[in-house]
């Protein structure tokens, strides 16, 4: 489905300075039983966010009123594990439009791009600078500029550029998805299929 266009995002952030945040933490398997894409944000980071009696865990960042915003900043190797797009849906449904980390797992990154959440990969040092800035002042804003492919820490104006391929960038900017593209070349696909050995 088509999604929101992404151009420039200026927002405070939610910091999660933990490495190897896996998809089972982002959304545990027991919450994957829906047949529609609805309500996954309620269970984002479920077992880090709530006790088993469903009371909120006060020390988890999503329960800390100091932190809010549309940008989630995670430690290295964010989104490892399962291919469940539900993880990206949960991130989106909670209200995030951008995830920043120094390294992303492949499938999670693709899933984000396919639903209009921008994964921004930064250097280790820039990631550390973001965490430091946010720790010093939780209202610190990041400015993510997709057109210019830059991410800037508002308080210090420290900035870094990030990579995204031109095709995906176009999709994000215009709110297009891959299926629109593929449906337009169906004849080419049919010709190809007619000549495959398997």
């Amino acid at each position: 489905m088509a999604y929101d266009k992404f151009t420039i995002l200026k927002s405070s952030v939610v910091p999660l300075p933990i490495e190897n945040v896996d998809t089972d933490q982002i959304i545990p398997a027991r919450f994957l039983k829906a047949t529609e894409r609805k309500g996954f944000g309620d269970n984002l980071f479920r077992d880090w966010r709530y006790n088993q009696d469903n009371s909120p865990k006060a020390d988890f960042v999503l329960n800390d009123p100091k932190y809010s915003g549309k940008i989630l900043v995670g430690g290295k190797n964010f989104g490892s594990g399962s291919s469940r797009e539900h993880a990206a849906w949960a991130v989106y449904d909670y209200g995030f439009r951008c995830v920043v980390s120094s390294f992303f797992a492949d499938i999670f990154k693709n899933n984000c791009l396919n639903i209009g959440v921008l994964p921004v990969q930064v250097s280790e040092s820039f990631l550390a600078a973001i965490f430091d800035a946010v720790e010093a002042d939780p209202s610190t804003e990041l400015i993510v500029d997709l057109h210019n492919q830059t991410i800037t820490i508002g308080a210090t104006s420290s900035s870094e550029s990030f990579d995204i391929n031109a095709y995906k960038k176009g999709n994000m900017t215009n709110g297009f998805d891959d299926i629109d593209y593929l449906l337009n070349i169906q004849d080419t696909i049919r010709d190809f299929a007619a000549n495959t050995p398997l």
Partner: protein
Amino acid sequence: MKKTLFDKVWDSHVVQQVQDGPDILFIDRHMVHEVTSPVAFLGLKNRDIPVLYPARTFATADHNTPTLNQHLPVADPLSANQLKTLEDNATKHGISYWGLGHEKNGIVHVVGPEYGITLPGATIVCGDSHTSTHGAFGAIAFGIGTSEVEMVLSTQCIMQSKPKSMRININGALGKGVTPKDVALYIISRLTTSGATGYFVEYAGNVFTEMSMEGRMTVCNLSIEMGARGGMIAPDHKTFDYIQGREFTPKDKDWDKAMGYWNTLHTDNGANFDKEFHFNANEIEPMITYGTNPGMGMGITQGIPNANAVEGGESTYKKSLAYMGYNEGENMIGKPIDFVFLGSCTNGRIEDFRAFAEIIKGHKKADNVTAWLVPGSHKVLNAIKEEGILDELHEAGFELREPGCSACLAMNDDKIPAGKYAVSTSNRNFEGRQGPGSRTLLASPIVAAAAAITGKVTDPRTLL
């Protein structure tokens, strides 16, 4: 130009290259299950478009199916609804559906090879990261998200940037009690869970050529656990012997035509890999994990590493050990355990049950252990019965359950309770993976068997 095995399969499936963008990759075979498909089918409905090639898609129910009393209606209404939704979608679109009770039902990555859906040189995808399993046959197989499931249903293609290439070579003789699972856990412990992110792996060396097809499946299955998009092994006579005559493999002239293609499927001498590793088989011990990702594994006789000796953040490492209730420097041998899980797309095949039975024969299940033995499919279940393994299990005090993903991801009732330790033959030891608060030790079927009869972590070599 010299090409890798991966290059040959990938390049022959590129329909079109998008300028400054991904490749449009044709998908030969697509597998779907109940959890990651409903929203994709909903997408087709919203766009009012059909499935382009229904005969290229196969559906099975596995992730949230119960493993007891499968003849009864599924008790959990959400699971029941998801299963019904898959059945309705498959029926509506003319897709083969192997639901609960069907003789071909089982875990998607177990039944795919069993029925010849999995073929050398094919592109195979499924909304499940362990789709990498099928790389054992020399296929490019990888997990995709639901948006991509929708793409494959509607256009038989997905858009993917070509990953970089990596070759992992292991030569030499494997020691006593060292199984394909140990080989895979060893590699992941050396590369870490992100060591192969961005790469597609080819496994090479005598260790893999000498491995059975099922062993190769176990290794390729775990490719995703080091971050790789997938892993593959060049097809050989074992591969062709395995697939020939199965229901969905090409027959007669089609077989000959396919063999013409399959015989080209090897990495050319001198082909270039972006990254290459060499390990010695004799360095590998029976493995066990002690932490909360599959890279936190070690030889079973080793001590848990100190935080300052591991790569990555100390606080994340300490958080992980705290979750497990373990300390730096401790030895795993003798650690008490509560559960044993034999099964999953990693180790739920007949050879895994044979290996487990070999260890427990003549012993009794330890009283402090609850054991869940879950075959990967009905075909595996039937073989367990026919080969007399079920009798051996019963004599030792074990029960067998019905096929499914089960406690690997605990979507059904098979949940390890909070704080309890499970030695599991599955693929992930993430926090809460096997149930909220559960603690998982990943290991081979024989390490699981040794734990099941001794009630604690035990070096299986002492029982061989």
